[in-house]
């Protein structure tokens, strides 16, 4: 230890002599982070991003992003002597003639799926616990930006090999661009360097995929993490945890070891998937040809909901004055996703407006303690899941012996009917859970032990909660609804008008809660814990 301590001391003084960072480093190396499994979701995203950078760099050494026509002469026999783009040929070369190439391709694809799935899970965690509230709105916005870019980056990535499946995806993207009113066909010709498919698109999206978007990810992730660092992490409520403190473990050594270890675990799991689970077997699809398609064409899951929306769109087009507007493409392809993502981005501001809550929050909420928000979240998830089901309607139809028409009509109606139902049901479940919490605090936990009293009555023994548990279940804020009077004190009609009324209605819905039990109530009930 002596020698190690001396080296450590030397390194520290070397750094401090040149940067004067001793004070800053001491403070930050012992920075406290709260511990919870759900805080690791964001970490998974960060680590899969690093895995993507590493495995992606490996792939660039052999990938040739060119649509120049070549004749395949590699070792995969079924495709030999077939004309294809250099991009597809080099992707086959990586898969069959570079040792470890297929492994890296599969690691890259699995890491991309994990990256997206992790972002969605992290986003849900942040949403349902209210972690986006003041002062963290900016980080929510950055997060929504990262999800959006992630969808684009993933789509461009699986489009690069220029196989029949991904080429079909590009064709659909081209049709969406082309459907934009007024400028659509111009934008499509600019993007593709002429008529679809041309020879310019793969090289162009390659630059975007490996340089532009990763650069933007790096910048946004850096700001995202700096804000987490600077604003300190939120924590779940519990004894000893307040709005004014952070309870947890120091970065050095605990989180360095845990987070470092977790990176290797994520990498290990991704490599395991890459080793045993085949993904995107491009050699089965063949080279892209606009006159061909494979049955059961499916995008990756994060695009699936968009595809499902497009599939369920009603066949609507408007022809007027010699021009065409394709509502069947614009609504599901641009308008609905645009509205969804805008609402998602603005949600922190909408909620703060509805509740009139302008204070800082560092303690997270249990989803049940904010029934309205939880119901909104569940409703949105229901919407996405239903359109996602429709995105896989062909696969579901063949697996469950249904017809595509049945699934299409189920989802077309379901996408309108089910989300509101889910809202109502979720809200009721949240309120019931609040009631259960109240019951537990006031009457104790059911033990399942039955006791016969002297006069023959059977009762179940209830066990009183600890002081810490009681506090945890009752500490949450239960704001009252905003009072928006119809007339002010001078009898003048409220100038806020309709807007005020809408706000009052939202605020009322948000304030619907089961009153948290208090010590006073508990005392009034006495010690009768049965």
């Amino acid at each position, binding site marked *: 230890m002596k020698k190690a301590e001396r080296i450590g001391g030397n390194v520290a003084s070397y750094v401090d002599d040149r940067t004067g960072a001793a004070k800053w480093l001491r403070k930050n190396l012992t920075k406290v982070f709260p511990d919870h499994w759900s805080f690791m979701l964001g970490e998974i995203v960060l680590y899969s991003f690093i895995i993507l950078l590493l495995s992606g760099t490996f792939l660039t050494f052999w990938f040739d992003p060119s649509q120049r026509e070549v004749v395949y002469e590699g070792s995969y026999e079924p495709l030999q002597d077939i004309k294809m783009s250099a991009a597809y040929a080099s992707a086959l070369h990586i898969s069959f003639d570079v040792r470890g190439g*297929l492994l890296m391709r599969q690691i890259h694809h699995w890491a991309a799926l994990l990256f997206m799935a992790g972002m969605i899970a992290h986003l849900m965690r942040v949403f349902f616990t209210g972690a986006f509230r003041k002062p963290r709105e900016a980080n929510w916005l950055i997060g929504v930006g990262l999800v959006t870019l992630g969808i684009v980056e993933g789509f461009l990535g699986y489009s690069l090999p220029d196989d029949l499946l991904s080429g079909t995806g590009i064709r659909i993207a081209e049709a969406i661009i082309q459907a934009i009113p007024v400028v659509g066909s111009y934008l499509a010709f600019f993007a593709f*360097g002429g008529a679809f498919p041309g020879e310019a698109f793969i090289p162009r999206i390659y630059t975007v995929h490996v340089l532009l978007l990763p650069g933007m990810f790096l910048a946004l992730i850096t700001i995202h993490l700096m804000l987490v660092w600077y604003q300190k992490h939120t924590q779940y409520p519990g004894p000893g945890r307040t709005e004014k403190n952070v309870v947890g473990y120091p970065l050095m050594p605990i989180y360095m070891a845990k987070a470092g*270890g977790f*990176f290797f675990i994520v990498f290990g799991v991704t490599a395991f998937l890459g080793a045993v689970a085949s993904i995107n077997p491009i050699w089965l699809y063949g080279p892209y040809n*606009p006159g061909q398609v494979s049955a059961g064409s499916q995008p990756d899951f994060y695009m699936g909901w968009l595809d499902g929306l497009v599939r369920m769109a009603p066949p609507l087009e408007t022809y007027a004055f010699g021009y065409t507007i394709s509502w069947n493409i614009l609504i599901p392809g641009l308008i609905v996703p645009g509205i969804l993502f805008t609402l998602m981005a603005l949600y922190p501001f909408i909620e703060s407006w509805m509740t009139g809550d302008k204070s800082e929050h560092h303690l997270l909420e249990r989803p049940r303690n904010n029934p309205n928000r939880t119901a909104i979240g569940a409703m949105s998830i229901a919407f996405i899941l239903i359109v996602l089901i429709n995105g896989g309607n062909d696969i579901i139809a063949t697996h469950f012996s249904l017809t595509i028409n049945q699934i299409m009509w189920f989802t077309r109606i379901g996408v309108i009917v089910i989300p509101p139902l889910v809202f109502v049901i979720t809200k009721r479940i949240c309120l019931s859970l609040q009631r259960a919490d109240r019951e537990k605090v006031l009457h104790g936990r059911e033990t399942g032990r039955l006791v016969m009293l002297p006069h023959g009555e059977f009762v179940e023994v209830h066990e009183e909660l600890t002081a810490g548990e009681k506090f945890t279940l009752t500490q949450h804020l239960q704001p009252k609804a905003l009072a928006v009077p119809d007339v002010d004190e001078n009898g003048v009609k409220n100038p806020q008008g309709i807007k005020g009324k809408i706000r009052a209605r939202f605020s009322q819905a948000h304030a619907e809660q089961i009153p948290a039990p208090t010590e006073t109530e508990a005392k009034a009930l006495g010690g009768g814990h049965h």
Partner: protein
Amino acid sequence: MSNEIQKFQDPGLPEHVHRKTDVDPKAADRAERQVAILFVLSALFTVLAIYAYIFISDEIFFFLPIMGDTNAHQLFLGLGMAFSLLFIGLGLVHWAKNLMPDTEVIAERHEFRSPDEDREDFVRTVKEQAGAAGLGRRSLIKRTLGLALGASALTPIVLLRDLGPLPGKELEKTSWKTGTRLVTDPGDRPIRPEDLEVGAVAQVLPELEVGKVRHLYDIAKDAVLLIRLRPSEFQLDAERLSWTHDGIIAFSKICSHMGCAVALYEQQTKHLLCPCHQSTFDVTRAAKVIFGPSARPLPQLAITVDSDGYLVAQQPFNEPVGPSFWERSS
């Protein structure tokens, strides 16, 4: 005071419970050994990965349940790499959980809002400095600066102009001309009506003019499906019927929805189905949309036979093929 409602009080952080490794040096030593074993396992798997890379041939396949035929080289290289990484991670986490201090620490938070004094000072400084620069008064400077900045953003946009040619009438044209022969794809052989049995379907392309090469962007507009029915099965108006030949009808294969190849033909129902978004077209009724998101029938190509008995186009397509676009007139 007794009437006031009292909430449950915060009992403060629960007392720290020592782990076995904190109190029992033997347990701590055991944990240390476990961590070390995990790291050694990791190193062994790295050896496996390198061994697989160099010595296991990529020609060996063997059957595994669930996974099917598996390539030994790829599998052992991947497993070696996966477990070498996993064991490093597990070792580090085990180390952190059992041997590093696990006492919870409390750090204070500070409100982000600066004291009112500082805020006022900041606002005053900004106002003063802005005033000194004349931002408030000299509106001419502000407006012209806005103009200059806005205008300068136009150059980069204009520079993108050469990304591609203007569409012109390109989207409305195909290679089909009056008298163009239909040839098989693949194979490029001209087709006679008798080559196609009733119920059969074939993908065709326009015959290449001498000296021309077929590009993918040609196929993206030219691909056509030939389907042969019994002439009595058609429910077409006189004009459309005259575009068929002896029960053979030709449609653009490029979906009128989003341009995928409409490749699935159901012989029983005589429906064409696009596998991308399930737009379904009824062949007997001039590819009328009977299900799915497409708003238009597939364009029909008028066909007949030439003097040598080969199928040819009577005329070019009478409407643009493929997905809709703004300038499309119907």
